[in-house]
């Protein structure tokens, strides 16, 4: 019952009393503030941290913030796509972690170079996405359960080839042989090189992923159909679209992006650590959910996800510089998420 128009009656006289004018002006201001809230807070944080700690504002530190959030932002973009089709991918953290192991194994045990390793790992992520989609679309397993089981499966699977050891040069294999390969220096550049000495490759990758997925979801026919699947699956099918194919696409994108995140981690760390990627899933989901509040969209959106990831990164970096202890980090992330969700769902309801 917002603005239902009578079919034939002449327009109703509108009360232009000063009371109404003031309240609608206030309502407009409220809407503007709500949709810009995350940006306003982000600006306030940047300003506040720079004032409190001048070293915060230098270019190097800002780039290191972006580098720190790059992996979370890339995974979050994948989460956003699965949210758009009305699904959820809990396996992204495990895919990223197994991709770290897969990349290390490929180079150290099989002796592959960067040119072979990167496509191989991306294909691994895409394949896991396909399996997820098969479980969800074909076998009709509920998305949370399917990807949760996949998460378990992958966390276990990554330990098997090395009998639970982390992978670094000179790894002793389960059969007693010593691995002869090493990390390809070209591969390590993905995590350690900076364009013009300023912009890290991972930040460039994050930007490319952000642009590509933003265009895909918001400006293409496929993106419209992805959202349509999540918005009303019956209507999308009755409009002649294959929702099975669209969902499959979403999970493949999510899996591939997760393995790209894994590649970035592997290239930065330079070894295959069994415990890598612990909080990736939660951080990526949080970024996607904080994204709901950006521009007042109240729905998954890629731009929001990236801003959400950067927002958390800025906050954590600034607090660390101000000597906040490391163990407060999760609390800060949680508080931001709670605030963003309250902003998205709670405050916006009154006027709509």
């Amino acid at each position, binding site marked *: 019952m917002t603005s239902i128009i009578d079919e034939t009656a002449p327009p109703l006289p509108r009360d232009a009393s000063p009371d109404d004018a003031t309240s609608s002006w206030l309502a407009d201001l409220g809407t503007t503030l709500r949709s810009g809230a995350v940006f306003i807070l982000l600006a306030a944080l940047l300003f506040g941290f720079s004032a409190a700690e001048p070293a915060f504002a230098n270019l190097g530190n800002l780039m290191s913030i972006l580098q720190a959030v790059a992996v979370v932002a890339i995974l979050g973009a994948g989460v956003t796509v699965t949210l758009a089709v009305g699904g959820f991918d809990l396996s992204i953290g495990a895919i990223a972690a197994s991709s770290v192991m897969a990349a290390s194994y490929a180079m150290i045990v099989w002796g592959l170079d960067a040119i072979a390793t990167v496509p191989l790992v991306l294909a691994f992520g895409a394949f896991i996405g396909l399996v997820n989609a098969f479980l969800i679309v074909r076998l009709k397993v509920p998305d949370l359960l399917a990807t949760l089981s996949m998460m378990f499966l992958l966390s276990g699977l990554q330990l098997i080839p090395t009998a639970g050891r982390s992978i670094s040069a000179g790894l002793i294999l389960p059969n007693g042989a010593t691995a002869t390969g090493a990390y390809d220096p070209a591969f390590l550049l993905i995590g350690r090189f900076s364009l013009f000495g300023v912009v890290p490759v991972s930040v460039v990758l994050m930007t490319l992923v952000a642009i590509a997925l933003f265009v895909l979801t918001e400006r293409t026919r496929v993106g419209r159909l992805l959202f349509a699947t999540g918005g009303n699956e019956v209507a999308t099918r*009755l409009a002649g679209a294959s929702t099975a194919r669209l969902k499959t696409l979403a999970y493949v994108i999510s899996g591939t992006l997760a393995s790209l995140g894994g590649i970035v981690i592997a290239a930065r760390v330079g070894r295959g650590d069994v415990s890598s990627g612990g909080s990736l899933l939660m951080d990526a989901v949080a970024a996607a959910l904080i994204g709901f509040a950006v521009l007042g969209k109240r729905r998954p959106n890629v731009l929001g996800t990236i801003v959400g990831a950067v927002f958390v990164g800025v906050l954590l970096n600034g607090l660390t510089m101000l000597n906040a202890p490391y163990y407060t980090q999760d609390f800060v992330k949680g508080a931001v998420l709670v605030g963003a969700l309250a902003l998205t769902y709670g405050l916006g309801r009154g006027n709509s």
Partner: protein
Amino acid sequence: MPLLHVDALSRSFQSTRALAGATLTIDAGEIVALMGANGAGKSTLVKILSGVLPADSGTITLSGQTYAPRTPAEAAAAGVVTVHQSTDLIGAAGLTVADTLLLTRFSQRGQPFFVSRASIRRQAQAILDAAGFDLPLDRDFADLTAADRQLVAIARALANRADLLILDEPTASLSIAESQRLFTILKRLRDGGLAILYISHRTADLEAIANRVLVMRGGAVAGAFKRPIDFAAAIETMIGRKLQSARPGIRNTEGPPVFEMRDAQLRSDSAPFDLVVHTGEVVAITGVLGAGKSRLLSAIFGASRLAAGDMYLDGRLHRPKTPAEAIAAGVAMAAEDRHRSSLMPANWPGSSLAATISLPHLSKWYPHGLLFGGRERREAEKAISRLRIKASGPQAPIASLSGGNQQKAVLARWEAEPSRLLLLDEPFQGVDVGARYDIIKAIRSRSDRATLIATSDPEEAHEVADRILVIDHHSLAAVPHGTPSRLSEETHA
């Protein structure tokens, strides 16, 4: 003293005045019908009376006392109970009829913590006896017909002392026989002293039971009609202009056959039937809820399968496995219940009027994949002027449109690209008389395709169709050409 006296009641939503000084009275022991186009303020009035919304100004007096309920529970305690249109929400699968009848009682304070089956049955039977209904107490709620669900809702509403019963479109999904049963019960309740406020678009219903008709327009009561009720005048008051015959003449519809079904069986245990639809023809299929209307249309559209038999489109075998194949072959379908089958939720990408129209045509209109070029905006502008859609523009959120205009948008979606056969399942659900006229005119103005319409309302079928078929037990039986039903004669007299 009247039972209920509503005086100058107003309520606004932002800049829209949904209710602008509505004044009316209802006496005990009468059935008052409330008519009005979509957006006339009927549902706002009902929401205020039932405690869902507060009024901005105006007063309500109930049995001489000031009445301003803040919650539905307060309204019920004061003796005003409401049965809403969608009665599938009053219970849930897994609950029996007895459970459903007692659901509101379970949530009241002071009820015992432990319940036994026997006590539930006893209390439920008492509720049914009080209302005078006969329903199977142990039947699962999910297995009830729409009519029985309606009765469960009414019985539950009357379980506690009630002075005023508000019914919102109670016959929307009932067959004629089921409606008659409901009317008998309502008349008995009225004769027992209950006041009933009855909201409906269906003049045949109102003719049958209403003591008085109130017509709302622009948020106020624009007219009151006593028996014998002049429905033509009531409808003219409601839509604010002269009533034209919504049926624009008999046309020559002897074009070549477009679509044929031979020895078709919707279910393996139903009787086989044939169906031929000609170019330019508008054929309506009527039948009670569950008779197989939707099943028939969805089989033609590839959303379900025929149990046996063949279909031919333009003489070629038509056997779509998915809606996409049916669309490619030239079949379009606007399915029943537009919110579930056609529209995107509010604030979601694709929830604008233009995107609602473009959804099935994206690959044709944007062959390169990028949504640039404004094709959907132009198509939406065309549809807005052709179908007289009331909207602020192509980017208007579909949720901001009234029911009739949403339905026009769904029709515009499937008329945006040429088709050979258009299937419309209950295209007049929640559509007022004015919008219905526009939709019928648009449907009947096309001679390049055939149109097959499923509706449970014979009056609607007669208004829109060249030919009416009746479906029963998942099989078709023809009705002789051009025989108007009694109902529609009365309405258009």
